[in-house]
Structure formats: structure tokens, C-alpha cells
């Protein structure tokens, strides 16, 4: 039975508890109270892995089969449900970590970097464990994988060790102590999980990222799409966007001019980034907004109110 008029100390205690919960909620929303829930959140932060679900309304979740056309050929995403024969149900934790951290199959063969392990390698061990727990919890679906259809020499899988030797350094992302906690959280979400640079950075002929043009967009994006320059360059990038504009886009897919993103980014938002907390989207926006501006025009300068010839 509550007292008719609670003493001040009761109110202060209630206030303290409320404040503590509010502060913890931001972390708790990200951490969850068990590995599967945490893994589900990380899965969303990674863009919902839309690549691993075939197109069409009847496609089984994460059972693979989706074709991704690239300048190197067409890749068919594998089945990552826990089916023991056709999916990854037979994998233990070490297999999963090896795949994500090193880009290697359990039999030791290299993965093509269309599977963005050069980004996922930056994910911390504890988060990899949670991701595996989540993937182990999705319905297993029997669906055999389809071989990739790649042009020479990209079809020669053994050549990947050359690419890796030139371009790939495995290992989780270290915090930058000179930057704020928000910036660091945004860097981790964008670089390791959201893997933004894997689409937004142009690639050289060997398929490696052209790091001098980090996040500066490409006309040769996956699926033949034009991928925009998301550095804060005012003429060719998103220099006139604020942090709130970027965060809003990650939630709604809407740009500041109320045009909407389409294609793979729309899927990554709809199946991934829109499930993040507001604070996490703002952190990503802070990181992206702080990138070095790079002049790199990818889209045709659309004459929005151009006249007739």
C-alpha cells in the first residue's frame, strides 16, 4: 500500500531508478538480455543480410539463391540457415569466426570478397558469437547452393590468396581514443557491421577497394546500380546534408529533398538499419558526416528543372 503522500526520499529514489534505466536502456537495447537477441540486433546493423535471401515473396529467409551481378560475374549467395547439409548448421563457432574474420570456408578455401568479410573482420569476437547464436536460431531450410558464374580469371578461386595478400588484413576494429564514444560507436557500426564502404567505395580491377576514394561512390555498383558519393563534398557528395539528414535516411530511406532511395540500399534500410536505435543511427551519421570530403562525380548532374532543347 503506497503512503498517501510519499516521502521526498521515495520520489528521489524513483527518479534515480528512472534515470538509470533511461541511460541503461540505450545500451540494453543494443545488448539485449541474451545472445540471440543481441545477435538479432547485430544482424539488423549489418543490413539484414538481404543478399542471402532470394528475391520474391516466397523466398525462404537466408536460404540463399539470390543472384548478384558484378563486373566480375554473377554470384549466387549461399544458404546460411542452420540446415546441416545445405546450410551452415554443421559449423561450430570457430568455423563461423574463421569465415567472418578471415574469409575462409571450414575446408580452408577462400571466399570471394563479394561476401564482405573485409568489413566483417572488424567485428569483435563477442559480437561474432552473438551473430552465430542468432543465425543458429533461424528456421533451417534445405536449399542447395548454386555455383557462381564468374568470368576468367575471377573464377579461379585459388587466386584469391594473391588478392588477400595485397589487400586484406584480418582483425577486429580498435577504438580510437582521440575520438568521442559516439564517433567510435558510429565507426564500428558503419565499418564493421553496416559495411557501407563495401558498396560506396569504388573497386580496382582486382576487386579491391580503392581506398583513396573511400565512400566516394561508383557507377559500377553491385547489381549494376549507381552508388552515390556519401562523403561530405558539397558538389559531388552529400556536403549539404546534416547529421540528422543521414540519420533520417537510415531510418526512413528518405533523402532531404524527399526523394527516396531504391535498390539495394532500400533493402538494407528496410531489413536492417531501420531497426537500429535512434542513438545508433545518429552515431553512424556522425561517423559518415565526418568522413574526408572527396570530389568524385558518379551521378549524372540531373537538370531537375531543365527545359526543352
Amino acid at each position, binding site marked *: 500500500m503506497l503512503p498517501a503522500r510519499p516521502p521526498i526520499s521515495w520520489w528521489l529514489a524513483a527518479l534515480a531508478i528512472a534515470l538509470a534505466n533511461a541511460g541503461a536502456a540505450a545500451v540494453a537495447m543494443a545488448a539485449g538480455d541474451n545472445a540471440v537477441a543481441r545477435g538479432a540486433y547485430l544482424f539488423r546493423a549489418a543490413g539484414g543480410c538481404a543478399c542471402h535471401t532470394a528475391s520474391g515473396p516466397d523466398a525462404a529467409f537466408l536460404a540463399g539463391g539470390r543472384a548478384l551481378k558484378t563486373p566480375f560475374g554473377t554470384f549466387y549467395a549461399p544458404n546460411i540457415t542452420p540446415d546441416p547439409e545445405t546450410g551452415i548448421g554443421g559449423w561450430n563457432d570457430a568455423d563461423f569466426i574463421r569465415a567472418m574474420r578471415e574469409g575462409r570456408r571450414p575446408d580452408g578455401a577462400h571466399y570471394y570478397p563479394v561476401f564482405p568479410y573485409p568489413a566483417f573482420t572488424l567485428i569483435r569476437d563477442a559480437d561474432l558469437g552473438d551473430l552465430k547464436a542468432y543465425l543458429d536460431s533461424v528456421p533451417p531450410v534445405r536449399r542447395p547452393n548454386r555455383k557462381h558464374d564468374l568470368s576468367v580469371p575471377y573464377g579461379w578461386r585459388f587466386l584469391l590468396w594473391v588478392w588477400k595478400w595485397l589487400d586484406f588484413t584480418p582483425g577486429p576494429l580498435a577504438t580510437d581514443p582521440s575520438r568521442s564514444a559516439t564517433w567510435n560507436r558510429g565507426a564500428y557500426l558503419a565499418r564493421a557491421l553496416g559495411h557501407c564502404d563495401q558498396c560506396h567505395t569504388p573497386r580496382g580491377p582486382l576487386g579491391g577497394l580503392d581506398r583513396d576514394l573511400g565512400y566516394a561512390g561508383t557507377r559500377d555498383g553491385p*547489381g549494376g546500380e549507381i552508388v552515390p558519393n556519401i562523403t561530405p563534398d558539397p558538389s559531388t557528395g552529400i556536403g549539404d546534408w546534416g547529421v540528422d539528414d543521414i540519420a533520417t535516411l537510415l531510418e*526512413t530511406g528518405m533523402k532531404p529533398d524527399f526523394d527516396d532511395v531504391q535498390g539495394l540500399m532500400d533493402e538494407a534500410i528496410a531489413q536492417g538499419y531501420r531497426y537500429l536505435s535512434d542513438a545508433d543511427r545518429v552515431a553512424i551519421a556522425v561517423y559518415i558526416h565526418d568522413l574526408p570530403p572527396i570530389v568524385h562525380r558518379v551521378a549524372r548532374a540531373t537538370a531537375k528543372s531543365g527545359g526543352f532543347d
Partner: protein
Amino acid sequence: MKFRKFRLAGSIIGLALAAAIVAAAGGAGAADDPANVIKYRRIVMGSMSNHISAIAGIVKGKVSYASHIAAHARAMHAMSNLLLDIFPEGSDIGKTRAKPEIWSQRAKFEDAVAAFRSESGKLALIADSGDMAAIGAQLKVVGKTCGGCHKPFRKKKKKN
């Protein structure tokens, strides 16, 4: 007798002429060069984008022209009434992102346009209210109706 036949013939010719004139006027866009329809359409789309961006700039406080919101909102709503006219058959050929589903799923397309007309109309109604929160909220609703057409009926941006 002769006079009656004359009048009948005259009425028939007159009606036929009138019908021809009405057909020529009412079938606006159908006989135009698709390339020009596409350019015209881009101009109309661009003008709506400009108006909604202008309102957003005012609502965000970048400029203080709150009294201008009504003009932009009414212009945008007026543009929305043009949309059904500017997608004639054959205008998906050329430099356009219009998808053939606009015609093969015409009812769904017209529903999407109707949603945009309705929500832009509501925005025009509250534009003079001075309630920036309500205007900002309705702006988002209108933006979603833009996507309601773009997502199913507009192609992704591709190189070719």
C-alpha cells in the same frame, strides 16, 4: 422535305466536327512526342521536389519565410493534379525511369497518385496554421506518398 434533309446533314457534320475537336483537345499528351512528354514530366517532378524542399527548409528554420509555406504547398498540390495526364502510353520508352507497370497495373498506379494528391491537399490546408510541428509531420506523410509511387513504378538508377 429537302430543307429537313439539309438540316439533318448539317447537324451530322456539325456533330462530327465537334467530336473531332473535343477528341483533339481531350486527348492531350497522347499524340505528343514521348521524348518531350518525358522532359515535361521531369520538369513537373522537379518542381514538386523543389517545393517540398523549400517547405522543409522553412520548417527546419534555415530561412524564416513561414508565410511562403502556403504558396509552396498549394503549388505542389496543383502539380499533383497533373500526374495522371503526364503518363501517356508509350512514355516509358526513352530517357525515363518510368516502369511499364504504370500501365499494366494502372489501378494501383492511380491509387498511389490519389494518396499523394490527398496528402498534399492536407498539407496545403494546414500550411497557414503556423504549427511547424504539424506541418513537419505532414511533410513526412507527403514524402512517404512520393515513395508510394516511386518504389513500385520507378526504376533504380542504373548506369545504362
